[in-house]
């Protein structure tokens, strides 16, 4: 058994044990899906954009993966608070492996959460256009999860207290979500907004998911994949560096 594997397993065990938390964390996506899906549905339809539930479901799945992976990445802060971080930092395991194990674990958990929301969306009437592209959707979920778990770990390594966590959520994660086009189409946006959405990595994740699930594209598969992979690698690098500098 390797250190990466046991740390990955740790994240999964913790997830499996926090059933109440799992249910609670599904509440928000559900609300978005149902309230927005049915609330904005008629308007969306009248604007000639088709079914809003179809449109928003990939966005809500992406949102779930985003929140879940950032949260687990930042679980680092709790490990610091409760002292477990010390145990991983003095161990004769290269810190890059510790970082990878945690990140992969967090990403896996985020994907499971995303799948749960996908099932709920199906119940709410969401239908995948072409079943053959489902593996592609999984791939994009994985990419989004890896990218934002790495981001969470990087942030968790750089900040020391839990108060800063709220700040990060409000000023980084929420904007990333709202500007990603998860809730609205990216075409016909005002110029400034259109530029901003293009530097939001989640926008490429949402687009990839939408292509795979409902066959609707804003950027295109190749660009989506390339941007996500590049940003994920950069964040993994940054995260490993910051993680290796942690003092407790």
């Amino acid at each position: 058994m390797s250190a990466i594997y046991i740390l990955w397993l740790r994240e999964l065990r913790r997830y499996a044990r926090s059933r109440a938390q799992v249910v609670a964390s599904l509440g928000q996506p559900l609300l978005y899906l149902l309230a927005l899906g049915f609330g904005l549905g008629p308007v969306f339809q009248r604007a000639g954009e088709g079914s809003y539930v179809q449109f928003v479901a990939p966005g809500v799945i992406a949102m779930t993966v985003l929140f879940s992976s950032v949260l687990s990445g930042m679980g680092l802060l709790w490990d610091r608070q409760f002292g477990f971080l010390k145990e991983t930092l003095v161990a004769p395991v290269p810190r890059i492996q510790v970082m990878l194990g945690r990140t992969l674990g967090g990403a896996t958990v985020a994907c499971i959460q995303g799948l749960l929301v996908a099932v709920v969306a199906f119940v709410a009437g969401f239908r995948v256009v072409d079943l053959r592209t489902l593996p592609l959707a999984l791939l994009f979920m994985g990419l989004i999860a890896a990218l934002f778990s790495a981001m969470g770990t990087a942030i968790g390594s750089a900040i020391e207290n839990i108060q800063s966590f709220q700040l990060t959520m409000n000023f980084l994660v929420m904007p990333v979500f709202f500007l990603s086009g998860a809730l609205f189409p990216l075409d016909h946006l005002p110029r400034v907004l259109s530029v901003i959405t293009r530097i939001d990595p989640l926008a490429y994740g949402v687009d990839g998911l939408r292509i795979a699930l409902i066959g609707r594209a804003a950027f295109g598969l190749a660009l989506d994949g390339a941007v996500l992979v590049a940003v994920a690698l950069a964040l993994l690098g940054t995260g490993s560096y910051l993680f290796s500098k942690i003092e407790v």
Partner: protein
Amino acid sequence: MIRVENLVRQFGDFAAVDRISFEVGAGEIFAFLGPNGAGKTTTIKMLTTLLRPTAGAIEIDGLDVARDPHEVRRRFGIVFQDPSLDGDMTAYENMELHGVFYHVPRKVRAERTERLLRLFELWERRNDLVKMFSGGMKRRLEIARGLLHTPKILFLDEPTLGLDPQTRNQLWTHVKHLNQAEGVTVFLTTHYMDEADRVAQRIAIIDHGKIVALGSPQELKQQTGKESLEEAFLALTGSTIRDETANVSRDRLKTMAKLWENRR
């Protein structure tokens, strides 16, 4: 085995460890004693690669800690003063994770885990989540985990904190055995002078970040002309409580500022 030269660690302007130098030989049991806030834990954190020194050099098993932290980490085991367990995992899982981290082969890992959990009377509770444990049980698990792999050097930062006399006795018997049978070098801190007197071959006394005395228990007693190590300790470090001067004053300032705000 451990060589420390002019080691300094500052937090802001405050020097928690202030130019200390000492050596610990291979196979030695070395006690590092001092009042609260003297700088013991800070020193151990620097020795174990958790904190970077502000100045000075540390050598462990011939390796430069600053230059080769990863190799150094293969050489030691540590029981921390503060909690370091994962409360959301079971006792057994905590042990398992540690064993994997330290490359203990699967079979040996299972055997030793059982032996240590039995020794510290945790075997029956091995499948319970650690957050459900009492303080003493957590402490015992920390120790059992620290002893799972056999390192060249064992750091024990107040290992007996909050433990009953039975467990303390178990622990020191086991540590002495490790030292004699496997030649493990031990670096320990404790506030129980009788423990230090019983197990340590040499003792350094640190106060306000500086080493004020160093020698065998016998030598320290002779040097101060006292009967017991406790008396010698008090003679060397004074009998007033000088708990973390720097922080106390900072806290006081904060409290006063708050009072002032509330009045307005």
